[in-house]
């Protein structure tokens, strides 16, 4: 397993994404961060923490589980569902979806449907820690921590303190596992 980001790298990427969000939106007004379970949730909180350090405002952070919106529900074992918790009305807000790895885009497609059932935001954007390519849908991220060219045989592992106890991004060849 090859490490491509350590804890400091992840923190720097989070800080930069926070800056980019503030820059693009001219502040944090009307911005709602929505983390996609599992690791999108602590990432969204970390981005909110960074925004708070820079601008002294706390943007709302929601949690989204996309299990009920997957397009492969009948092809795989029944998923466990996590809590969907959106603390504010999303209508007319600028929602930024947050996830750890962007790959095929199917998770984001499901998340877009899920958010649409919860309200009608003014806009939806996407922030990811790692974009590893290989999209199967017309979806692109607005904020990227790191572009990581991979082959489909490789596996990208993101570990975050809140979930895994340590922090970093690793890449490995699935066949060697």
């Amino acid at each position, binding site marked *: 397993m090859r490490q491509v980001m350590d804890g400091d790298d992840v923190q720097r990427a989070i800080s930069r994404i926070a800056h980019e969000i503030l820059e693009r939106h001219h502040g944090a007004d009307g911005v709602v961060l929505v983390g996609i379970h599992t690791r999108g949730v602590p990432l969204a909180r970390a981005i909110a923490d960074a925004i708070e350090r820079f601008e002294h405002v706390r943007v709302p952070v929601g949690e989204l589980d996309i299990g009920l*919106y997957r397009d492969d529900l*009948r*092809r795989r*074992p029944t998923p466990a569902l996590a*809590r*969907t918790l959106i603390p504010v009305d999303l209508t007319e807000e600028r929602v930024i979806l947050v996830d750890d790895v962007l790959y095929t885009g199917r998770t984001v497609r499901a998340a877009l449907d899920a958010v649409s059932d*919860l*309200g009608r935001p003014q806009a939806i954007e996407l922030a990811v820690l790692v974009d590893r390519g290989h999209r199967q849908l017309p979806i692109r991220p607005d904020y990227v921590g790191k572009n990581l060219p991979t082959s489909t045989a490789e596996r990208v592992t993101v570990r975050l303190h809140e979930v895994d106890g340590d922090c970093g991004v690793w890449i490995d060849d699935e066949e060697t596992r």
Partner: protein
Amino acid sequence: MKNLLTTEDLGRETLERLLDLSDEFVEVLDREIPKVPPLRGLTVATLFFEPSTRTRISFERAAKALSADVMSFSPGTSSLKKGESLKDTALTLRAMGADIMVVRHRAVGAPWRVAEWVDVPVVNGGDGAHQHPTQALLDALTIRRHFGKLDGLEIGIVGDIRHSRVARSDVYAFSTLGAKVTLIAPRTLLPRDLDGWPCTATGDLDDVIERLDVIYLLRVQTERGGATAFPSWPEYVSRFGLSRERFARLADGAVVMHPGPMNRGVEIAPEVADSDRALVLDQVRLGVAARMAVLFTLATGRGLTREVTA
């Protein structure tokens, strides 16, 4: 999980997984748009050979909240010849495209037979005095959401146990989840043989009422001959009814449950039924979420894999 027919063979892990899913569906039902798409394109058929309003409506509501389509079959008042008609009905609805079947029948074991005949998941919606697993699930959900867990709780089930599929289903589910269950009824309304039931039994409600965390009341099933089991209604009410006086003796924090329909003034005093410690309407509300969890579990995973990948 291929079918949901009984709580007797449900392990703790499976039960808890269903309850965890139910909790998430409670949240879905609280949304402004209480509908999610996972069963889009699937059809849930309800085959109710016994009259029922709440259970059928609850299943249909659950199916629709998951975006499934619903087909309902009820035999009306015609005299069905059980075996053959049941089989033909099941095969007919399957041929019309039912992807999941919910079966209620007065004959014990009918849902198992249907499960042999059709190649889709079957849910037991109540078979005779035998099993009603989704009721047990919604009861366990109601208790878990109120107390946080079932472990160590003392649950008393009072009334016509002998004719009750609810009691039988509840006993297994509650005890698997760690509760201590006591059946409370006249000897004539207890099952003839309690061998293998994971619970104890007593004929004296007053002896145990103070230590109960949950008192679960059952209707006397006169249609199944329950009322012939004791000398008179006044005597039954005085010994087993949850009167205001008995209600006052319940421990602080204890709650009252009932699967409905309630006979006010018999097993439950009207004031007790309306008290805020009666969770009856919570049970009804949570029943939709519990049934969503069951339908979702059967429709995903391995239940319908064959049809989709074929």
